[in-house]
């Protein structure tokens, strides 16, 4: 009997894990099954470029099944419960699946409801719909004050907000709008990034480019009417365009199955 490996999630992590594992193991020894509910696979790192219209979004979307190598079983379904003690998973489609090894690659979900005012006013580029909305906003932008940041830590792809910021600076220069625009970059910790040598580098580059930074800025609320973003630390910044990565949590099924607190992230172990 081959060992049964069950992978939950058909995003980048689940897909790469399945294909790599298939490459390194034989079907005689290992049976690989992926369960996921993406109708299409959207390559999220492209969002930053799509928002500046540097990339045709159609190239970033593929049918999910198309991406799995031969020998990977793919089931389009939604996981509703994980029973680690009994090595079982239930799905919305009524399946009860057993496994020998479980890989959880369900990723993050956005929780804009964690920040009052977020949904009414903030833009971002972390999924395709929002990247395309932001593209429209940027096309219409004629100058003003742009505030960029992330509403919480952790987020997917931590470098994306500063990558976006530098591309925005280039974009505005190219379109002759940079001298009509203030760029403000806010970050939750006492630095512009979590990795110290990267933070030192980008901090200097931001200063050279006239990008104004605000550290120890944890977003508390957004006032869409008056276009102000308020930090937990008592700072308030007004904006014309707010590009704010939404708060993230892990998937609810992870918390509901007792594998995590309401943050939804499985605790890792050093053992």
């Amino acid at each position, binding site marked *: 009997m081959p060992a049964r490996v069950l992978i939950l999630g058909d995003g980048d992590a689940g897909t790469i894990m399945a294909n790599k594992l298939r490459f390194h193991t034989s079907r005689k020894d290992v049976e690989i099954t992926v369960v996921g509910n993406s109708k299409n696979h959207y390559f999220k790192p492209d969002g930053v470029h799509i928002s500046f219209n540097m990339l045709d979004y159609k190239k970033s979307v593929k049918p999910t099944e198309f991406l799995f190598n031969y020998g990977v079983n793919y089931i389009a379904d939604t996981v509703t419960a994980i029973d680690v003690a009994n090595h079982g998973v239930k799905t919305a489609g009524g399946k009860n699946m057993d496994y020998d090894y479980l890989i959880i690659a369900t990723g993050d979900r956005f929780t804009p409801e964690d920040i009052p005012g977020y949904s009414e006013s903030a833009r971002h580029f972390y999924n395709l719909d929002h990247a395309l909305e932001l593209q429209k906003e940027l096309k219409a932008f004629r100058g003003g004050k742009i505030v960029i940041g992330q509403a919480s830590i952790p987020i997917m792809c931590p470098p994306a907000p500063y990558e976006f910021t530098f591309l925005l600076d280039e974009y505005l220069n190219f379109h002759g709008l940079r001298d009509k625009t203030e760029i403000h970059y806010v970050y*939750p*910790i*006492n630095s512009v990034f979590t990795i110290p040598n990267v933070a030192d580098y980008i901090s200097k580059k931001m200063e050279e480019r006239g990008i104004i930074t605000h550290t*120890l800025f*944890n977003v508390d609320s957004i006032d869409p009417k008056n276009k102000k973003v308020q930090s*937990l*630390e008592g700072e308030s910044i007004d904006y014309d365009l707010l590009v704010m990565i939404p708060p993230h949590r892990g998937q609810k099924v992870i918390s509901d199955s007792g594998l995590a607190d309401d943050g939804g992230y499985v605790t890792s172990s*050093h053992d």
Partner: protein
Amino acid sequence: MDVKADHVIDARNSYCPGPLMEMIKAYKQAKVGEVISVYSTDAGTKKDAPAWIQKAGQELIGVFDRDGYYEIVMRKVK
């Protein structure tokens, strides 16, 4: 230290910004007047957590060296 913590966060072996984020999460849940204590082994947090407490206008009770880790103690004052 003779202040009793209402919330104790054991963030040892967690790296920056984990301990600071845990402290902020506890701060959001705490009531005014409550004391939060964070255990950490991360060197950066020793600097960053007091900086956050100061910027947020909260009270830093102290940073204490313990056996193989340190403890940051703050009070939520508003």
